[in-house]
């Protein structure tokens, strides 16, 4: 079976003044039709960079894909021309950005901003036809179509994120990249937007990569989870593997230990000491070794590879010979 998206050994670097920032270091991912993958990690883990690489929207002068393939529907888009990419963006793959306050153009009516995607990808549609479609999309995301001739500043944050979603889904793309779509919103609004995304996903059968740092959001919306650390995927699996499985990468253990648990009584949290390494100066060996409570000498010398069994994979020497007890 052909995957909708297959990323093989993706490396992305940014060239700043002097320093070479290695933001993504060999990411492998597959996503099938209709699936939702949660891409989890802390600031600087390389989540957004991965998404931008899929969109081929890395900052022109500084960011570049150094190595690897991104197969979208079987075609390697790392080699696609700019013109071909423009045809794909918005129609086959689209992206939702984090901050709804800044991701809409302040001087264009929201209806036109939604209509523009249709205009770009359905050249055969007439003006009226587009208007009709825009109305439908507005209803779909729960916005009154009468308000399509208003400007972004007249909408609240939650409404704007609905407009952003409308733009992303207007052409019914097969792949949606949602970069922290609810982080900037209040909890009750976040719940509304998540519910909307869930409903649309079921309706449109869109595959989604949901980038987030919130494991709660992942638990509620995703089928598969990939956890990133310092530009690598260090653990991947189904939600069951990640949330209910017994074996985990030590970083994943730390991540879960950091979240205040609503049900447990215990007061102290169990975070990992230290912090993520600067991607301009990555350590030798396993990139997590200097924070890892289980690190051995080998960890600082040799980078571990991903050890898979069934759907669950962990990038750690501890799991070299298959399932091992971590506790």
């Amino acid at each position, binding site marked *: 079976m052909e995957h909708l998206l297959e990323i093989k050994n993706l490396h992305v670097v940014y060239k700043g003044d002097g320093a070479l920032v290695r933001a993504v270091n060999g990411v492998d991912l597959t996503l099938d039709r209709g699936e939702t993958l949660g891409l989890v990690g802390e600031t600087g883990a390389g989540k957004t960079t991965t998404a931008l690489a899929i969109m081929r929207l890395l900052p022109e002068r500084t960011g570049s894909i150094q190595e690897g393939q991104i197969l979208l529907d079987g075609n390697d888009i790392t080699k696609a021309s700019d013109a071909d990419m423009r045809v*794909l963006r*918005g129609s086959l793959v689209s992206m939702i*950005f984090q901050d709804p306050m800044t991701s*809409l153009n*302040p*001087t264009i009516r929201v209806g036109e901003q939604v209509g523009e995607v249709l205009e770009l990808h359905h050249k055969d549609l007439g003006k009226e036809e587009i208007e009709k479609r825009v109305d439908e999309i507005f209803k779909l995301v729960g916005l009154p179509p009468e308000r399509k001739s*208003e*400007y972004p*500043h007249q909408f609240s944050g939650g409404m704007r994120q609905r407009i*952003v979603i409308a733009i992303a889904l207007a052409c019914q793309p097969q792949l949606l990249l949602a970069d922290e779509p609810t982080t900037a919103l209040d909890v009750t609004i976040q719940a509304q937007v998540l519910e909307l995304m869930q409903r649309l996903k079921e309706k449109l059968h869109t595959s989604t990569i949901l980038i987030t740092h919130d494991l709660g959001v992942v638990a509620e919306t995703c089928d598969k989870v990939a956890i990133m650390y310092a530009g690598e995927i260090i653990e991947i699996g189904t939600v069951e593997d990640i949330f209910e499985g017994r074996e985990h990468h030590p970083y994943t253990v730390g991540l879960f230990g950091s979240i205040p648990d609503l049900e447990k009584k215990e007061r102290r949290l169990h975070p990992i000491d230290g912090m993520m390494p600067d991607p301009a100066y990555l350590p030798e060996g396993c990139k997590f070794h200097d924070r890892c409570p289980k690190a051995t000498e080998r960890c600082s010398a040799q980078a571990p590879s991903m050890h898979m069994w069934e759907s669950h994979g962990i990038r750690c020497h501890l799991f070299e010979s298959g399932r091992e007890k971590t506790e």
Partner: protein
Amino acid sequence: MLKYIGKRILMMIPVVLGISFIIFSILALTPGDPAQMILGENASLEDIQQLREEMGLNENFLIRYVKYMADAVRLDFGESYRTSLPVVEEILTRLPNTFSLAFFGIGLSVVIGVPIGIISAVKQYSIFDTVSLGLALIMTSIPAFWLGLMLLLVFALKLGWFPAIGITDWTGFVLPSVTLAIGSMATMIRMTRSTMLEVIREDYIRTARSKGASEGRIIRRHELRNALLPIITIIGINFGLQMGGAMICETVFSIPGMGSLMITSVRQKDVPMVMAAVLFVAIAISLINLLIDIIYAFVDPRIKSQYVKTSR
């Protein structure tokens, strides 16, 4: 929208009053007795005293100001000490020259400077960008009157393409307009470039890219409009500078405008003329800025919607 325009016009009144008060106060410091000046060296003391009385010069400063403004509202700005004619007449013959000069100057700098700024920003770090920034740097550093002299020397005196003196026909406007345009063109290039660069980095440009829009379309539809909004304000601010520049330029090209009028009047201590001239120029600038504000409100939906839908 009418409400907005009305509000803006009302807001102009205290500014104009303020300007007139400041200028009136400054000029009140002028040494010398106007009555003596008008009547000449040999006038008798009684005559001078009488004229002072007639001109109201013996009264308190504030009362003189109020009287002046009361007359000014009726478009009576007094008579020139020099020619004894109403100052308004002279000013009205000269104001259009200065005004059109400033207008041509700013028009030229916008037409040339804004596109250069846009290309510079889009092609940041290119040779074009470097060269245009370098040019802008030189252009801001050249004093307009010296540039005027050099242009005059080369194109009027040496090559004889344009007249060296006065503005009998349109050719007379060419050199002074170019002179004026150069200075503000530098501002236009730099400001357009920097606002454009800011817009290029905005999130909504990334949104437009992720829709699959082409670079050309992104520039035309998404970047230009947002970048040009601040430029409108800059044009307004620059207009004031241009009026000042035009007045200096006039002396280089011997154009009968407000500049030469003011300079002669200042030298001869013709206070009513100076007062009225400054007031007229300042009001003209305020009007232009008012116009700019209204245009801005029309093109920027964020301001427009505040007034169109007051119910929300």
